[in-house]
């Protein structure tokens, strides 16, 4: 029985660590979606961020610069996506899919080009260090789960409250939500719909880039082909699952983080199931979650529709 405790604590700590990545990516997507733009290119922006951060962290041995690089790359990709969907009004879903496919292709090529096909994949010498919070970190069990992480995890855990406040208690949030509900009405009320959508999409993409960077500099210390493995899409699903509310997204992220960790650990524990089945857990969970959550009509009313002055 005593053997179980450290196992569970380790599991939960890993859950929190992975959930942080989902939280950041998903809150970024939340911002974009609340302003009315669905960004299915999040996966592509995450992997671009992951690669950029790996590249920079590898060459400079500064993982923090890697996170920075991931953010910048994400923002640039977000700017392009915003331009295509907001200014040129191309279909958001199709453009998003294109970005995700493109992100995978580009990173695959450049990774192979720069790092070759050696048998041992390149590693980062240093990852983002863990910063233990004094006093709180010493609490038995809880300390390891919540207070012995790197700074970005702490930021991720606090972000939902900040986002909730901004979204529901400030005029910025009111304008963002108005843009997502009815851009025509928001425009006539003097809200700069285009600027808000640009900012929300870019910020969302920036956060996706950071989330991707966290995969290479926090969770692992290397880059692989398709290292994001669909997490970007899960981040989009989390918005739906969380009814577009930051606090519920936090819960969803913990759930999915747990599923991912469980999948890996179950395989290691060696239950008598073929290893493929525990690995399916996050994907099956995503589908089930979508089935349950999508029936409610809770999203921003204008989500996915491009706006043009003079039309309704």
């Amino acid at each position, binding site marked *: 029985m005593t053997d179980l405790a450290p196992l569970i604590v380790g599991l939960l700590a890993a859950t929190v660590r992975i959930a942080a990545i989902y939280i950041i990516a998903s809150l970024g997507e939340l911002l974009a979606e609340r302003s009315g733009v669905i960004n*299915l290119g999040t996966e592509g922006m995450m992997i671009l961020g992951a690669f950029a951060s790996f590249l920079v962290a590898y060459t400079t041995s500064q993982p923090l610069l890697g996170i920075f690089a991931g953010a910048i790359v994400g923002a640039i990709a977000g700017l392009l996506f915003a331009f*295509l969907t907001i200014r*040129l*009004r*191309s279909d958001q*879903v*199709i*453009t998003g*899919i*294109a*970005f995700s*496919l*493109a*992100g*995978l*292709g*580009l990173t*695959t*090529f*450049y*990774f*192979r*080009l720069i790092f070759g*096909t050696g048998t041992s994949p390149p590693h980062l010498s240093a990852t983002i260090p863990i910063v233990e919070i004094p006093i709180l970190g010493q609490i038995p069990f809880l300390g390891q789960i919540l207070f012995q992480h790197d700074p970005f995890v702490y930021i991720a855990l606090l972000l939902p409250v900040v986002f909730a406040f901004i979204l529901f208690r400030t005029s910025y949030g009111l304008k963002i939500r108005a843009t997502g509900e009815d851009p025509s009405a928001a425009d006539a009320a003097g809200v700069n719909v285009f600027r808000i959508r640009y900012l929300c999409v870019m910020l969302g993409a920036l956060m996706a880039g950071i989330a991707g960077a966290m995969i290479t500099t926090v969770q692992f210390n290397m880059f692989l082909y398709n290292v994001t*493995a*669909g997490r970007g*899409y899960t981040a*989009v*699903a989390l918005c*739906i699952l969380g009814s577009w509310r930051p606090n519920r997204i936090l819960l969803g992220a913990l759930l999915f983080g747990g599923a991912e960790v469980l999948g890996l650990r179950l395989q290691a524990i060696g239950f008598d199931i*073929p290893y*493929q*089945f525990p*690995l*399916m857990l996050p*994907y*099956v969970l*995503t*589908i089930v979650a*979508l*089935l349950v959550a*999508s*029936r409610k009509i809770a999203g921003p009313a204008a989500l996915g529709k491009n706006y043009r002055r003079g039309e309704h």
Partner: protein
Amino acid sequence: MRLPRIRIKFEERAFPTFQTTLLTSFVALLIVLGVCSVFLVNTGVNPFIAYYLIVRGAFGNVMTFAETISLTGTLLLSGLAVTVAFRVGFFNIGVEGQLITGAIAATGVGLALGGVMPIFVNIPLIILASFVAGGLTSFVPGAFKVKFRANEVLTTLMLNAILALVLSWLCHGPWREPGGWPETVALDASATLPVLMARTRLHAGIFIAIAALIAVYILFKKTTLGYKIRAVGANPDAAYSHGIKRTEIFLTAAFLSGGLGGLMGAIEITGVQHYLFPNFSLGYGYIGVMIALIGRLNPVGVVIAAFSFAALINGSQVMQTTTGIPFELTNAIQAVTLIIFTSAEILNFYKIRVIRK
């Protein structure tokens, strides 16, 4: 003397014409070649040499040409599958998974009947089984969308990952060949598609692909079903208000789409590989999405795009062996092509006016 100042104005036009589509595609192609040259300069190779090598690798001699045709057939089926789905408004990104179930079904039938029944019984059964298997794989996310409003981009993607793991399990487990490798035994000759040209991999599957192309073309151009599919995709409310059973049409199109994807998996296994193993698809399902978008959901455009991509992939493989440039260059080129072509779509709605001042 003052030179006349020329101002170029972008003016909106009400709807695209055939000429605008051609022009924008051409412009997009030029931009793609330009951007890809940048990549190539990155690798230290003269872009023109690289393009030449790719073209030569794709068509240089009869054997490589046959290889390109063979791959075109596979990619064509993928592109058609996506086209049918997107036309009805079903964003099917799950072709990668549908081809897996099709391949599994094909292998199952092939293993069971290979050597037992003659080839002209086996092949039709394999085609039927893989079509149905792929169709069901697409039908389920379609039903989820109809019944639960679940976003099909996400559900089909998740399904892809799940099915890839199922395939892995099958090959490591129940269907593993005695002898150790995680793959199945080779299919009996009576369960494989005959090779059309000696010493090449060009197989009879190309006929299946061509048949599918003709079928899809006729479907959308001439049939009531095709009309209904287009109507549901363009405006489901109007379609429903006018008696078109939108749910039935939606699910039918989803099924057909998946069926084509399943066919693709079947011809890969029975035509090219002749046995089943994990990761036999090099992302063909996703390439199908790219091809469908670049071809603007039009069977003619899709076949051109499929051929181009097949040439690109094959040519790059050959180029890698001679120059050492990584094959993954194709991934970058595909990515750029996709982004630029989907962005260029918007140019269809503008016309250029040159105003002299």
